[in-house]
């Protein structure tokens, strides 16, 4: 008997906690909607996609290839990103650059994003700072798999 009463007590306590959170959050949410006290966070669902969360500075998003000052890709086709990529999703084909200081340029550079696990190893491995994952694009979804295969032009954009 005493034991059963104990259970009820806990249920009521739990209910009160829920009510307390609801009221507090509702209160701050209302204040926020009215433009008051915007700083104080209530546990509010972000209304994605209308509303977007700010990405952390080190967030890894869609890749991009960087360019040199004269507009040529920085990449020298060293294939180190290809070597390190655990998903085997990068493929690079090298070509000869007329400038003998540069020597190697990518003729093809393909990342198959349908395999990429966004580990960022390629960025770490690159000796030329030629590839970064700082575009802030996280909505990389397509209707067709083929559209997830990014080539040199798409990556240099």
């Amino acid at each position, binding site marked *: 008997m005493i034991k059963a009463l104990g259970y009820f007590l806990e249920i009521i306590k739990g209910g009160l906690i829920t009510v307390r959170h609801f009221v507090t959050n509702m209160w701050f949410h209302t204040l926020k909607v009215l433009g008051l006290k915007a700083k104080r966070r209530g546990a509010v669902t972000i209304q994605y996609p209308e509303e977007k969360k700010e990405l952390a500075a080190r967030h890894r998003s869609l890749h991009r290839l960087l360019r040199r000052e004269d507009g040529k890709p920085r990449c*020298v*086709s*060293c*294939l*180190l990103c*290809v*070597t390190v*990529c655990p998903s*085997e*999703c*990068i*493929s690079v*084909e*090298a*070509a*000869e650059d007329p400038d*003998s*200081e540069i*020597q*190697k340029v990518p003729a093809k550079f*393909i990342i*198959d994003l349908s395999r990429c696990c966004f580990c960022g190893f390629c960025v770490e491995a690159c*000796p*030329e700072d030629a590839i970064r994952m700082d575009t802030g694009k996280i909505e990389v979804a397509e209707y067709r798999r083929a559209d997830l295969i990014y080539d040199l032009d798409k990556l240099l954009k």
Partner: protein
Amino acid sequence: MPKIFIDDRAVEVAEGLTLLQAAESVGIPIPHFCYHPAFPPEGSCRMCLVEIEGLPKLELACSTVVKEGLRVRTMSPKVVEARKSVLEFLLAEHPLDCPICDKAGECKLQDYFEEYGLFKSQFKEAKEKREKKFKLGRNLILDRERCILCTRCVRFLNEITKTEDAGILNRGIHSEVGIFESEFIDNNYSGNLAQICPVGAITDTDFRFKTRVWFLESRESICPLCSRGCNIIMDSHAGYPRTLPTRRVYRVRARQNLDVNFHWICDYGRYGYAYLDEGREDRLVWKKGDRETRLSWDKAAQILSEKIRSLVHLRKNSRIGIVLHTNLTNEELFLADRVFRKGLGVEKLFLADPPPGKGDEFLLTADRTANRRGLQEVGLPVQAPDLKALSGLDLLLIFGHYLAAGTSPSDLKNALEKVETKALFASHKSGLDGLVDFVIPVPVIAEKNGSLTNIDGRVQPFVAGLSFAGDGIAEWRALLDLARELKVEHKYFSRLASPEAIYRALRKEIPFFK
């Protein structure tokens, strides 16, 4: 035999060896750049310094000859310090090119830096700029910034090809590898230069930028492009990463064999590997009129042996012909002899080979097939494929696609049209494909096991370095299957289930192969 002490280990080594060779012979590697077993010591790189008890200074292991009682230290602190300094001096003028250098991954400078390096650069001056793309040879590019002036390339041209095209020009900081009179190095052995350059100074345009060496898997094989049978390494793509282009072999390198090709191979063999992937036969088909049916080898073997059996039954053995070639292994030629000539009493054995080329005085021979000597030693009586003799047959088994090369297409067509059944066992597509009833793809030498006899009578076994995909069958297997279907000497052939077993029989029966 002098007894010396290397790192406190007492070893007995042959008279006349250098310390470096002596140490290597007992498994103690001494780092070096300029020493190469093919040449006398040069002593220019200073990487091989070792400490010898009783001598005040460090000595060069590559050019000090062993003497009774020498006590050598190869890893003492003094030695390590000296090697570090040597490396530091080399790197002072060396570009930071590893990411774009083809040698990276198999470069001695890189390896030794890994071992001894991590010193802080004390070099404050700017590095000297030099030419990075000098056309050194027909297919060689020299990067003068990367060159460490070991002179291996110069010595190769002086001592092996004896063309003496290059030398070290100028002095001091201006020293560089240069060419004397010719425009660039152009000989049939120039590809070896890229292989012996210990750093990435000489790169090979055939391999340049195609891939990185750590993606490659090295497999041993034998060059089948002439009768010398040079020992080679095929560097092929191992399947990782998945996304690389689907080329199988990226380069062919020489494998040391002092009895055959020393440390070298010719350019014809080095760059002639395209045949591995180009123009290959890939479908086993049976052609009836215009219709092509794909079938399995087992089925084809049944049909063929049915034809052979009925001809043999009617005592028409003389109307069966076999065309062979000398890119078949010893085992296959032996089986062809035992199955067809001894087993079935077929007398009409022909030989159709690719035409000979021009040999040189060094390795390349005029004979452009791998196993003519093997054919001689197995003792197969073969005749030239005379079209008249061919046209009088009922069944023709053609091994190799070389028959099409020597004759005019229309004559060949006329001759083969008269033959009732023709089966072609070929690795490559050719004009014969349209003239036969069965096309059966077969592996090339790099894709099967067996042995070859080179021009000097040296029997060299080899194993498959590449896999054979597609619906074909290796010739030795095909011959055994035919023997089984035809029930020729079942007891004899059933024991020969692998090239090794066939070779054992070969050794027992033919004294040459002992």
